[in-house]
């Protein structure tokens, strides 16, 4: 374990980008694009630097203002953190590349980038912070920015979706805040590592159980697990395409899945009951999401329901709790970020060219937009789990992990859901890109260069993503992340002993 000064920059760089944009971007035309690309490139680079450091030292620690924890705020970077940081910032960078062209259709580009950077700062903050109240604050930064971004088009439907999202999201945040309050009252500390130590020394009781439920509901709302999913199918399709990609690709994972993992594995310590709850929620999400996706005709809405279903897969992997299950869940998390962003960007490209999201009004777009069709095909195949695309390997691993753990029922449900996934993906490809080109769409052109570049890069990751499982590469990226789960509350002990 070493101290590292780079960690606060993960939050500082996007924050600076957001406010510089607000100050300069209004007057100078090229500034928003440039700042957006530079900031996300910077955070992505920092992510890679931290990956190197974590591989060598396992845990990086930073004390804000030189105040030692548990009094001061600590920022902690371990394998899981750096895995999430790289996923989030990679997607953010590619989405910004796409936005440089796509957002030209909207006025007020600087507002878009300001909010985007704030959301990114919030997500990075949630991931790196080691303080539970700090986590709530960053959660709110990211969430409030995302409410505004969903409403960015300011059409009636978008405003309605944003309002619904804001109400549900605030409700979720309140649950989290209430959980934080109970935990603070019970343990007298807000530092997560210190809290874990207090709980381990016999501090657990009914209040901890209550707080666990509150956190599960609050973060479950952010992750759109099934009983709490109602806002997602409205909010994600209504946002501009790059924001749909960010929300479905990384926001629900950074704010929902990551926070659940961090709290229940590293602070509370996972128990059999909790794993069962996660498994059940995951299975229900997976089935409900896939069944609802089947009957959608709005391309983005279909993808939004698919996100609910795929988060279910991730939760099953985490609920299984064996090293292989965790590894599979993390790998699927990464894959889902990539292919779902790609598909949302693809649907944005289709909307950009044809002006519609209704699958019944499309058809034969592959002839007019070959690159969009090709990249969307790669994303779809990865989503449906067709070998050799990355999604196949992660789904396979989840099923294998379930079988190894003796959970045959879950394995069978996962396979059936995967077949249904193939069905709705085929529906999307069949009605959207294959078939006959309607008369109305004869004159459309493929999208501008930067959008193509971004989609091609994502498609490339979809195809080559399976390589992450090669032993040497896995050691660097995935194994370190899954070690965090294995260490559990032991991590807290290491951090606190280092501090003292």
């Amino acid at each position, binding site marked *: 374990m070493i101290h590292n*000064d780079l960690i*606060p*920059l993960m939050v*500082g760089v996007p*924050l*600076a980008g*957001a*406010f*510089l944009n*607000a*100050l300069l971007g*209004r007057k100078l035309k090229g500034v928003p694009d440039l700042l957006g690309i530079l900031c996300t490139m910077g955070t992505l680079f920092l992510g890679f630097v931290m990956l190197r450091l974590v591989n060598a030292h396992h845990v990086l620690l*930073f*004390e*804000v*203002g*030189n105040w030692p924890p548990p009094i001061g705020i600590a920022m902690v970077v371990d394998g899981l953190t750096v895995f999430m940081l790289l996923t989030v910032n990679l997607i953010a960078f590619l989405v910004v590349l796409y936005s440089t062209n796509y957002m030209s259709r909207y*006025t*007020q580009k600087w507002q878009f980038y300001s909010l985007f950077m704030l959301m990114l700062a919030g997500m990075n903050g949630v991931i790196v912070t080691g303080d539970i109240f700090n986590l709530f604050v960053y959660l709110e930064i990211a969430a409030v920015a995302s409410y505004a971004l969903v409403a960015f088009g300011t059409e009636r439907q978008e405003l309605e979706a944003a309002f619904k999202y804001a109400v549900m999201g605030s409700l979720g945040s309140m649950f989290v805040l209430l959980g934080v309050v109970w935990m603070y009252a019970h343990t007298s500390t807000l530092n997560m590592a210190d809290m874990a130590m207090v709980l381990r020394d016999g501090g657990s009781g009914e209040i901890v159980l209550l707080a666990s439920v509150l956190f599960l509901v609050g973060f479950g709302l952010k992750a759109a697990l099934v009983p709490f999913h109602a806002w997602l199918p409205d909010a994600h399709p209504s946002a501009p395409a790059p924001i749909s990609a960010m929300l479905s690709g990384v926001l629900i994972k950074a704010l929902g899945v990551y926070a659940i993992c961090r709290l229940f594995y590293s602070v509370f310590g996972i128990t059999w009951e909790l794993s069962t709850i996660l498994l059940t929620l995951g299975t229900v999400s997976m089935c409900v999401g896939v069944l609802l996706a089947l009957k959608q005709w709005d391309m983005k809405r279909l993808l939004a329901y698919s996100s609910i279903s795929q988060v279910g897969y991730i939760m099953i992997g985490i609920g299984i709790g064996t090293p292989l299950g965790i590894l599979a869940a993390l790998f699927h998390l990464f894959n889902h970020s990539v292919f779902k962003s790609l598909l949302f960007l693809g649907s944005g490209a289709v909307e950009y060219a044809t002006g519609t999201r209704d699958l019944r009004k499309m058809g034969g777009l592959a002839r007019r937009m070959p690159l969009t069709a090709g990249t969307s095909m790669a994303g779809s195949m990865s989503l449906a789990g067709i070998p050799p695309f990355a999604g196949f390997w992660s789904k396979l691993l989840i099923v294998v992990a379930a079988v190894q753990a003796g959970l045959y029922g879950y394995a069978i449900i996962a396979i059936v859901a995967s077949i249904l996934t193939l069905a709705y993906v085929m529906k999307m490809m069949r009605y959207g890109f294959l078939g006959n080109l309607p008369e109305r769409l004869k004159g459309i052109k493929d999208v501008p260069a930067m959008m193509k570049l971004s989609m091609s890069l994502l498609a490339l990751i979809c195809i080559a993503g399976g390589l992450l499982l090669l032993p040497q590469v896995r050691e660097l990226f995935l194994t370190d992340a899954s070690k965090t789960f294995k260490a559990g509350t032991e991590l807290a002990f290491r951090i606190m002993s280092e501090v003292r």
Partner: protein
Amino acid sequence: MSRERDPGMSLIVKTITRLTVGLILLFGIYLLLHGHLTPGGGFAGGVIIALSLVHVMLAFGKDKAFEVLSVSGAKALEGIGALLFLAVALLGLAWGAFFLNFVPKGEVFELFSAGTIPVSNIAIACKVGAGLFSIFVALVIMKHEPTEKE
């Protein structure tokens, strides 16, 4: 009757406002500058400074208030406040830690003490004051907004 010629409220309100608004502003500044010594600070000070502007707008109408602080001025001030706060935090990083209080702390209970805290307070006051004023403007005169934007 006199509304068309003269925006704002009645003569009584205007007179009272003219007398009190300076005091309100002064109280806001006092809370802001003594943030590290007494209860209050950047947020409370910023809110009260914004309220004095809101007061002017209610009593004299929007044009008078925009003479003091225009909407674009408020937006710029908000951005500057946030950047100043971030700059203080990042400067601390150059001395060894994010948010490190790198300026000498001085004598306790003196006005010029506590290192970077007063600077951060001023930054917060800029951000909060300008932000609150913008929100008020946006809520009160929505019709005015589209002309302000490009």
